[in-house]
């Protein structure tokens, strides 16, 4: 049981980590593309139209892909004014509550994200400026929320197994 749990955690963490690396590479590409657009406009007098839009899509992807990694690294800020004053043994219910809310929110976001993508696919929605198929950037919503959902589940399982270990006297 404990071993299976560790495997789940490992797989989910690898996914989150992978998401952040891909998001990071996207960040590099959008930096290059924004800079390139300025250089081409001023130095070669040849403005390019796609840079703004593609870079923004890459940012949306990076943001959703990085959400699970940010959770793993405790980077999603919250107000810890009360929580930091709660005695250690009372913290788990709060943390489990966060995970439960996270699971509900991400499930809804995933479901609505799939709807959004399939809607855009069905109607063949494209961007006005460069005629880019919109389902591609929108796909970031279900993909990102799915990884984030898994990270919340893995986190909840970890807290629960920690509680059980404690109630069994560390066994």
């Amino acid at each position, binding site marked *: 049981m404990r071993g299976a749990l560790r495997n789940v955690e490992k797989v989910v963490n690898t996914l989150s980590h992978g998401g*952040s*690396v891909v*998001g*990071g*590479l996207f*960040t*590099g590409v*959008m*930096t*290059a*593309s*924004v*800079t390139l*657009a*300025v250089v081409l406009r*001023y130095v070669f007098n040849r403005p390019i139209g796609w840079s*703004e*839009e593609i*870079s*923004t*899509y890459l*940012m*949306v992807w*990076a*943001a*959703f*892909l*990085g*959400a699970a*990694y*940010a*959770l793993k*690294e405790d*980077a*999603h*800020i*919250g*107000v*810890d*004014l*009360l*929580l930091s004053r709660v005695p250690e043994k009372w913290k788990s219910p*709060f943390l489990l*509550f*966060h995970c439960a*809310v*996270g699971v*509900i*929110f991400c499930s*809804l*976001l995933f479901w*609505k*994200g799939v*709807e*959004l993508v399939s809607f855009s696919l069905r109607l063949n929605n494209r961007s006005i400026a460069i005629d880019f198929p919109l389902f591609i*950037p*929108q796909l*970031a*919503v*279900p993909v990102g929320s799915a990884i984030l959902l898994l990270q919340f589940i893995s986190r909840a399982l970890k807290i629960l197994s920690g509680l059980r270990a404690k109630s069994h006297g560390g066994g």
Partner: protein
Amino acid sequence: MMEILIIFGLLFLLLFTGLPVFLSLGTLAIGILVLSGQTLSSLAGTMYGAMDNFVLLAIPLFTLMAQIMARGGVGDDLFDFVHVWLRHLPGGLAITTVVACSLFAAICGSSTATALTIGTLAVPAMLRYHYDRPFTLGLLAAGGTLGILIPPSGPMIIYGAITDTSVGRLFIAGILPGVAISLLFILYCYLHSRRLPDLAREITSTWAEKVAALRRVAFSLLLPPVIIGGIYSGAFTPTEAAGIGATMSFIICFVIYRRLKLKDIIPILQDTVKVTSMLLMIIGAAVYFGQVLTINQIPQKIVQFATSLALGKWGFLIFVNLLLLFLGCFLEVVSIILIAVPILFPILQLLRIDPVWFGILFTINMELALITPPVGMNLYVILGLTKTDMAEIIRGVWPFILLLAAGLIIVMLFPSLSLWLPMKAF
């Protein structure tokens, strides 16, 4: 009115359980829709739409630039450079710290990053020269807050994106108030250090030292004028300036100085994604929350209520600043912007208050939020840095809270201090 109190009461309740801000906003919005029998079909579309914004792209690009500069040791160079040039002054090291904070603020849009980068160097140095601990810790917490007032500025980008105010104008408007508040801090450092009897006065550096220090930072010092100059002249947008800044910082740290190796780039990019994701998830959830409030006509009701009070322009401004000061004691900056601004902005337009000027007042108020106890992100940064107790930091930060409040009042009384430069720009 009752429903407004219930909604915001619930929001604070959720926030105070420590639930991440984006979940608090998103879940409450869903809750309102479910309870009132409405559909939540726009959840994904609204969050996606909120993030699909070229203005917001400046956030990851400026974050990347600051991350590269901080890891590339540019903070050290800046601090050394200012120190060599200013150390002979009375209170030279304290003044050095303020100037180094302002300079780093000009390549970094985050106050916590500024406090962390300069604090790592300045705190040990100041304590070695017998500055008292509360003053040193308070100075670093407060000096770091300049990060969001002196352009670039993360909160100004978010404020500009959600209110359709020009981020370029906001940036330019922040320059003079930023300089004015730095000068207030410097004056206080000078007066305070004269009261410290056993402060070691440092010797004047030679010109050879000064030139050597300047040469080490010359390339990094190019960044702020390129970014601000480019925006000021209208040559490029803030987002493009951010892209150019990130590329330049990459060239400076990876190619020219070779301080960083190619394998360092992945962790830097990951950290950038982490910050971007955290901010954009909150922005997405906040826009959805705002949309749900609008469907239920909450902002209209608040505007009605505000007009029924007939506060007038100044009454409203004073009331808002006190409200923000209060919120700033408990919430952090991004949440305050995203919760308060969409509600306040319609009233602002009704009273014909300049959105750029208000943006600067708002940002200075957010600087206060960063150092007002019990929740002030910069207080936590200094706490993490020094492992001292919070009481000592709070004791040292009080004078700076008053100085910032004085700065806020000055910028409020003299709107041209912030509005004169952007009028000349573009």
